[in-house]
């Protein structure tokens, strides 16, 4: 071993972190336009020692997503969103791309189970032009050639998803958690459902859900709220909802079924994906912050799952957890990827780790840094205008008061060991389901012995179109 230099004394031990510094977060303002569009505006902080950036961002959040499509239409909302930037009644896909280039703008569309989101950002001098183009996207052409192109690409992408054990395990976990209820089917659809999505169905989905009285528009950055409201009114004021009543949203999903173990036997999988999870909480649940902290205790490199699975036992390259919150209860998921032969041991360690969080309170020395990972990630998320718009958009989508943006840090700080333990008892450790995707030859017998009710499904018989997967 070679050490380059004598070590000066100040270096021997790391200094401790200081007390967290306070932050002034943007204060959003809101209005509802006569056509029903809810508009949320925020100004970026700028001034001495806060560099102003001449950029404006906007996001249109439409309350219509994968949960608004039927089983046989799975993938409809995703296809619709993908097609929004591929042509309008006035401009072709190439013309739109060229207009975006000329403005130096960014334009994007995406979708989830609860909403579809279209976003734009551009520098201040050209933002009005970019915003006009953004408005034009709400009049899509759904040209047949573009529909076919996007459909072909979407079907092609499925092959990639299915070849990845972790991605496939998540799709299967969705079915195990939700069955035939609206969060159960694959958001991206299946080859069968995508093939049946005609241009007319896409246009009808758009007509039904993309309407001002079903949308929230968040706008902010280098623009004061009054100016933003005036701009949105000028550009989106003529957007009309159809005369028909707004369709109702999904009913709450069925209560979680009894514990289930599902094994998808995929002999060509390189390793086995393990997912353990439960239907958890909605975004507007009072338990949101306790759940966020509890998940952070389990997740990340220094979180319990990775410590137990990777650091202590070397069973995997990594393990983590995720809390997905939605309008209706979303999912808690713990996941890892292991050698086929390590599956029985790793499943045991995952379940034991989840139970451990329910059995004893987390010590302060562990809880404080795990909470820091939550607040640090929050601050990184709101560093950009797109990030602030997305955060406010999520609050609005789930009917959470916008003031929670400014209260986030305090709410995380208020979570104590008892809150984490209670959340773990009620929502993480109680009867989790388990989904395994891998070569069952190496672990099937051990899993059958430990979980007599385990259901084994050969990959060739797996059918994601069906609630029971076969």
């Amino acid at each position: 071993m070679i050490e380059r230099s004598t070590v000066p004394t100040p270096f021997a031990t790391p200094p401790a972190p200081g007390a967290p510094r306070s932050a002034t977060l943007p204060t959003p303002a809101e209005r509802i336009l006569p056509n029903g569009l809810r508009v949320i505006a925020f100004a970026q902080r700028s001034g001495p020692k806060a560099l102003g950036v001449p950029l404006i961002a906007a996001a249109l959040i439409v309350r219509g997503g994968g949960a608004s499509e039927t089983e046989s239409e799975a993938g409809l909302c995703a296809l619709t969103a993908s097609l929004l930037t591929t042509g309008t009644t006035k401009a072709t896909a190439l013309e739109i791309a060229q207009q975006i280039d000329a403005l130096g703008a960014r334009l994007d569309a995406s979708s989830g189970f609860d909403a579809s989101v279209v976003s734009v950002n551009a520098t201040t001098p050209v933002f009005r032009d970019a915003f006009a183009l953004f408005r034009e996207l709400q009049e899509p052409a759904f040209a047949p050639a573009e529909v076919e192109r996007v459909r072909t690409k979407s079907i092609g992408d499925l092959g990639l998803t299915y070849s990845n054990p972790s991605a496939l395990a998540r799709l299967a976990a969705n079915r195990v958690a939700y069955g035939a209820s609206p969060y159960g089917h694959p958001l991206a659809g299946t080859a069968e459902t995508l093939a049946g999505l005609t241009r007319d169905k896409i246009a009808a989905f758009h007509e039904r859900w993309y309407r001002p009285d079903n949308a929230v528009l968040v706008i902010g950055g280098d623009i004061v709220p009054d100016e933003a409201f005036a701009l949105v009114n000028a550009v989106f004021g003529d957007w009309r909802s159809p005369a028909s009543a707004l369709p109702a949203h999904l009913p709450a999903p069925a209560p979680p079924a009894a514990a289930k173990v599902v094994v998808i036997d995929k002999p060509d999988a390189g390793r086995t994906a393990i997912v353990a999870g439960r239907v958890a909480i909605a975004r507007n649940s009072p338990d949101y912050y306790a759940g966020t902290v509890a998940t952070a205790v389990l997740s990340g490199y220094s979180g319990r799952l990775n410590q137990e699975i990777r650091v202590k036992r070397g069973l995997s390259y990594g393990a983590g957890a995720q809390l997905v919150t939605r309008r209706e209860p979303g999912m808690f998921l713990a996941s890892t990827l292991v050698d086929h032969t390590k599956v029985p041991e790793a499943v045991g360690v995952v379940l034991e780790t989840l139970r451990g969080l329910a059995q004893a309170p987390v010590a302060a020395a562990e809880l404080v840094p795990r909470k820091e990972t939550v607040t640090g990630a929050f601050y990184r998320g709101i560093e950009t205008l797109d990030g602030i718009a997305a955060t406010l958009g999520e609050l609005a989508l789930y009917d959470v008061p916008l003031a929670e943006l400014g209260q986030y840090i305090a709410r995380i700080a208020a979570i104590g060991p008892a809150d984490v333990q209670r959340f773990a008892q009620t929502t993480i450790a109680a009867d989790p389901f388990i989904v395994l995707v891998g070569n069952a030859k190496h672990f099937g017998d051990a899993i059958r012995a430990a979980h007599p009710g385990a259901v084994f499904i050969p990959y060739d018989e797996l059918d994601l179109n069906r609630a029971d997967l076969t």
Partner: protein
Amino acid sequence: MTGSAPASLRAQIALTPIDFTDRTLPNGLRVLLVEDHRVPSVAINVGYRVGGKDDPPGRSGFAHLFEHLMFKGTANTAPETMDRLTEDVGGYNNAFTAEDITNYYEVVPSNHLQTLLWAEADRLAALRITQAHFVTEREVVIGEYDQRILAEPYGMLDEIVNREAYTLHPYKRGVIGDPQNLNAATLDDVVQFHATYYRPDNAVLVVVGDFDPDQANAWIDRYFGAIPQPAGSVPRITLVEPPQTAERTIGYRASNVPLPAIDYAYHIPAANTPDAAALDLAETILGAGKSSRLYRSLVYGKQLATSAYARADLREHPGLFEFSAILSRGSDVADARAALDAEIARLQAEAVGSSELDRAKTQIASSFVRGRQTYNGIALSLVRAAVERSDPGAVNTDLGRYLAVSAADVQRVAATYLRDANRTVVEYLPE
């Protein structure tokens, strides 16, 4: 909405200057600080003026290997301490090696600034280089070579372009490293390399974000100021690539080539020379997005290529202006070359129209603006300007330089540098 702003006004963005302090410690470390309180976080960048071009002869890949070894612990810390100090508090960290710079960066909540300043100073002063870490990281770097250069389609293209375009200058060796060279290296070579380049007078520290400058400066003095300045000076590459006088064409065949690719590389001046801005504009006009000339001609119009790019690869020493295209199925290399040549000839023969020039300026200005949204974006622009161009103030003057470029400037640099005798052509073909 109707009534667009007049085209000529679109790019006229008023950017507030980045307000940075600039001082040099007695040991030679340059320190640039930007105080900003938009969010309670902080970005730390430490850029070393060493990169692929500084690899010792026969030791190609050393700068890159070193980047890996900087994560393997010090006399005071365990391996991967940087990950723990950042990821475990909601931040992140990483590093990259380029031809002229090796840069290390962290973003953390602002109350962790002191800890990260300590950790960066610690790995400059007290890095622990063991035989075991040297061997494992060498394997990782060679694995990266296997993955990125050998396994990826067209992975060898950049290596070939650099190797063939330069006859003398060490830019010919690329950055990622040569497995044979790396395997021949000893622990002593590595320690020597570290002693030569990892010294305070060869580094720039940039801190951007939510901190008190007096407090930050005191911490910097305490941790970085304690590191002695070694005797002697840092060696610099003084080799000058002789002017190219005749076109060179190289045909390369490999097994993992789905479709033929072509690449043109022209010698251009260094990043801190007056023509750099016009060359960047030429890159945008030719190659950025679906409005670009290459996309409209080769990809969309004639459908000779599935993708076509231009890149002004401006470096500390004279760099390369590259064109690259991956051909569409069934297209002929000669046809694609003729179409590329026609676009180059057009840029030389005709002045770019005002709306096209304005579009390019708008695209460049927009990426400038977006880069300023994050503390790490600001820190990265400062560290690159300071290390690669010895001019951190360029972060505040570059946009003006771009906006001042005229159509005649673009035409002139195209005529001056995009000449056949100044280019190397690589045809990258299936076996």
